[in-house]
């Protein structure tokens, strides 16, 4: 099949998946809309859909809403990082689901640095984020080494680690680090020089972290497609036996992919912490790890597409929260929408008949071209 045709196919397929997800969403919104008559329900559903689809970009009275769009961009920061982390790990066929715990641990360690490390401005945020990332990298050594040395499922191991991280962070926060003068459970405030500066001062928390995230998209894309190690990671994902027989250090590369995933997730947590908050107060897993998996699936495990997928998810997320504010539809609808899109995107056989048709069409055209080419020179001789 020609490149153009397969591109068309993947676009049609993606749109179909999104369309199905939105249809499911519409149905659910309709069910939870209030109204005595059918007409009222329909109009409620429509206004809720308007918030979901157009709300994040445009104001209610028309005109582009910079604040909402900045919110969307700001929300992309952590999920770009977890998305990249998942891309790297899934590319090596390592179903490590520890980005969830990783981002929490990274955020926590970075927060500790930001509170207690006596470092000057400029150095502190960088050092804090790097230390947080390194901590998660070390954490990911556990599932990675157990997988390589003992064949323990990295999936189960990383899932368990998520809970261990959550409870330990909660314990440290509750018993040792909480600022007792505050009403809620949270740490002391970060030192003022630790904050990552904002790009735009409109309260949307769009910090320089966004730029850092985009830089890392480029770095990871180059790493995956232009370096020996990136090639090894992808090759192990495609065919581990082939990689082994061709002399790649499979074990080392598996460890590398998971540690790299950990570093990225931890970095995302740290940047999110310093860019958005002034103290640490997460007591539950933030969910960015799971969203990161959706992002990676939408991006087809290709780092370059991660920002677009992250934008899409962040946009829908913002839409859902607007919808819950204005239209009484619970914002957790996003989880259902995500799951549906996710399922259809990952479905290899989804629309396979359509692909079949395209393949047949291409082949027929190629055959025609071939026969006409073969016929031509004969004709010219005669």
């Amino acid at each position, binding site marked *: 099949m020609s490149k153009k045709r397969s591109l068309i196919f993947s676009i049609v397929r993606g749109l179909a998946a999104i369309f199905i997800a939105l249809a499911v969403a519409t149905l659910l919104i309709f069910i939870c809309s209030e109204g005595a008559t059918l007409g009222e329900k329909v109009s409620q559903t429509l206004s809720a859909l308007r918030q979901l689809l157009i709300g994040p970009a445009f104001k209610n009275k028309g005109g582009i809403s910079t604040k909402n769009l900045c919110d969307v961009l700001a929300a992309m920061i952590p999920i770009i990082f977890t998305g990249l982390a998942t891309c790297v790990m899934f590319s090596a066929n390592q179903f490590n689901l520890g980005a969830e715990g990783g981002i929490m641990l990274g955020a926590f360690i970075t927060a500790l640095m930001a509170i207690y490390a006596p470092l000057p401005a400029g150095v502190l945020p960088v050092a804090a984020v790097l230390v947080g990332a390194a901590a998660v990298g070390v954490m990911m050594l556990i599932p990675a080494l*157990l997988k390589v040395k003992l064949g*323990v*499922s990295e999936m189960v191991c990383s899932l368990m680690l998520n*809970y261990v991280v959550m409870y330990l962070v909660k314990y440290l926060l509750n018993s040792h680090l909480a600022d007792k003068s505050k009403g809620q459970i949270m740490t002391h405030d970060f030192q003022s020089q630790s904050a990552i500066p904002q790009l735009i001062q409109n309260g949307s928390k769009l910090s320089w972290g966004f730029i850092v995230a985009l830089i890392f998209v480029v770095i990871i894309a180059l790493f995956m497609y232009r370096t020996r190690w990136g090639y090894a990671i992808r090759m192990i994902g495609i065919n581990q036996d082939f990689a082994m027989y061709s002399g790649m250090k499979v074990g080392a590369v598996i460890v590398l992919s998971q540690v790299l995933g950990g570093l990225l997730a931890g970095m995302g947590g740290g940047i999110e912490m310093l860019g958005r908050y002034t103290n640490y107060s997460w007591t*539950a897993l933030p969910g960015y790890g799971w969203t990161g998996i959706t992002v990676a699936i939408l991006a087809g495990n290709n780092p370059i597409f991660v920002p677009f997928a992250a934008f899409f998810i962040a946009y829908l997320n913002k839409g859902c929260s607007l919808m819950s504010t204005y239209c009484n539809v619970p914002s*957790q609808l996003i*989880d*259902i929408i995500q799951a549906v899109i996710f399922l259809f995107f990952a479905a*290899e056989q*989804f629309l396979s008949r359509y692909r079949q048709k395209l393949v047949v069409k291409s082949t027929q055209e190629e055959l025609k071209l071939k026969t006409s080419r073969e016929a031509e020179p004969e004709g010219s001789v005669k």
Partner: protein
Amino acid sequence: MLKLIFTSDFFFSILRITAPILFATLGAVVGEKAGVSNIGLEGTMMISALFGSLTAYWSGSWSVGVLVAVVIGILVALLMGFFAFNLKTDIILTGIAVNMVGSGGTLFLVKVITQMTEGKAMASTTSLITKNLQVPSWDIPILKNIPILGDVLSGHCILTYLAFLLVFLTWVLLYKTPLGLNIRSVGENPNAASSVGVSVIRIKYIAIGFSGAMAGFGGAFMSMYYAMGWSQDMVSGRGFIALAAQAMGAGEPLGAMLSALVFGFAQALGIKISSTGTDSNLVSPIPYLVTILGLVVFALVARWKVKRQHSAAALKEAAK
């Protein structure tokens, strides 16, 4: 200290805590035997727990609640099967999607169905399940009068008995029935199975449906006995622990039951320790850590066994 911990009450709680993990573990065992890694057990349990508790409230009968929980579990599993087997979505990703619905989607549903708004920080159905809607307990006639043993084994929820009974039934299903043979053959070599006329996809659907039913029982146990109603993230990783128990039990019902009991023990111990005044957040990770340790020990033992077999074979060769 030890005397304080190891009371008959403590051993009773081990069985109670193990039951939901055991249900999910049996689901994982049968799924894995057919070559289906159902990591959506966690989410399936959440969804079943929600609908079970809601229907119990509406119908005023716990049995209807349990039944609906199981049916919902099966339906979710079959839907997973449709995506995994017919549309060829990776089964792991399918499971992740179900878990997404299980953690966030259920909260959406509970808010919509019960009309509880965002104002309440945590929507739940805790207020709906009352004492008479709980799955009832049962005293085993003669056994309950025996000291200690009676205190530990008798007076459990009937679902707890069912969980342990199902260990035996699952073993019978897998090893004493034609269906079990088909399940195992599909898991071991689908091509060989299909060459002798076994419908691989049908067997896989049956296996995943079974695991869904088990998750349904587990969910019903969680929301209608273990806790009085559904609340967010109440399953808290039991579905994942079940996967580990399956691996540690070498995929056999009995072994998986023993591993599930280890986790039940770890968690019961944690609860006991936290009741002495330790921060519960410090002891809560114990079952999860035990899971990782358990997997490591299991892997080491398996490796040692293989080594021993190899050396035994080599010795035999040499003797010839």
